[in-house]
């Protein structure tokens, strides 16, 4: 009985951990992709890319709300080491080839993990309906750039990071989908200096005002 109970508790803790990782990924990739606002290669893509980045932040909020009463507190009041985002989304990418390669790898990985949550999490289906357009956007770029050496090299470079987005049991599927051989993944829990700088910027407004301030 007790063993049964604690196994149940462990399962719930694992689930919360997975959801927190997902929400942190969405928040941080939304933030990183927003860094292209105003400087993307084409005006039309600038608007689209920024809009998709905002959607990702909306998904982060929806999942934070499942985990805590105050989504903002969860999003902004933790110390950098407490974030569970994958290193893939933390990377500060300064060129478009890497940015698009990341977006594509991330969307494929995201689809796999969201599908795994769908049956038990109503919000997953809701998120997925919006992700359909993100995937179309990413796939469209991938189709056109996949034979470009710059894009291919960027995807290969980011591949170990992409593997870290999904759970170990989902990696074989990700590998098949993106047609890259499985390698050792860059796992969650690593935060570099770039993330510390991002965290500083991300939480700046929140820290400047007393908790509960209304905007």
């Amino acid at each position: 009985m007790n063993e049964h109970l604690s196994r149940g508790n462990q399962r719930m803790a694992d689930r919360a951990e997975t959801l927190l990782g997902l929400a942190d990924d969405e928040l941080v990739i939304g933030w990183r992709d927003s860094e292209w606002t105003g400087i993307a290669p084409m005006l039309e893509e600038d608007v689209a890319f920024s809009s998709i980045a905002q959607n990702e932040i909306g998904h982060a909020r929806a999942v934070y709300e499942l985990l805590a009463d105050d989504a903002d507190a969860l999003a902004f009041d933790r110390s950098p080491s407490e974030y569970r985002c994958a290193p893939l989304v933390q990377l500060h990418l300064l060129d478009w080839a890497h940015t698009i390669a990341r977006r594509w790898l991330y969307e494929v990985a995201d689809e796999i993990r969201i599908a795994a949550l769908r049956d038990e999490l109503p919000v997953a289906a809701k998120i997925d309906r919006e992700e359909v357009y993100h995937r179309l956007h990413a796939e469209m770029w991938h189709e056109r750039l996949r034979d470009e050496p710059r894009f291919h090299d960027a995807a290969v470079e980011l591949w170990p990071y992409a593997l870290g987005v999904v759970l170990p049991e989902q990696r074989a599927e990700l590998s098949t989908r993106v047609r890259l051989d499985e390698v050792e993944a860059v796992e969650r829990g690593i935060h570099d200096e770039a993330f510390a700088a991002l965290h500083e910027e991300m939480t700046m407004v929140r820290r400047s005002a007393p908790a509960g301030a209304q905007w």
Partner: protein
Amino acid sequence: MIWEVFRRERKGQAFEHAGSLVAPDAEFAEAWAREQYGRRGESVGLWLVPRDAIRDVEDWSDEFDLKYRRVDGYSIKARLKEARERASQPREPAHG
């Protein structure tokens, strides 16, 4: 390639020209138009038309001063009133 974007704001309304965008093909045009003209829920439908597909009509001849075809200044208010009054009168029997 330039695409002209037409937007329907609500079901049943006519599409109106919303703007244009530059996209290499229909797929990119759709993805970009979705975000540019639909991300805030401001459209229920879009038409994307390559600018080349549009037949442009801009030249008009007015050699013979067609002012007489215009109706401004021709008031039908009084005539309408008169007609309405007439219609509301009881009709005289055709054969007295």
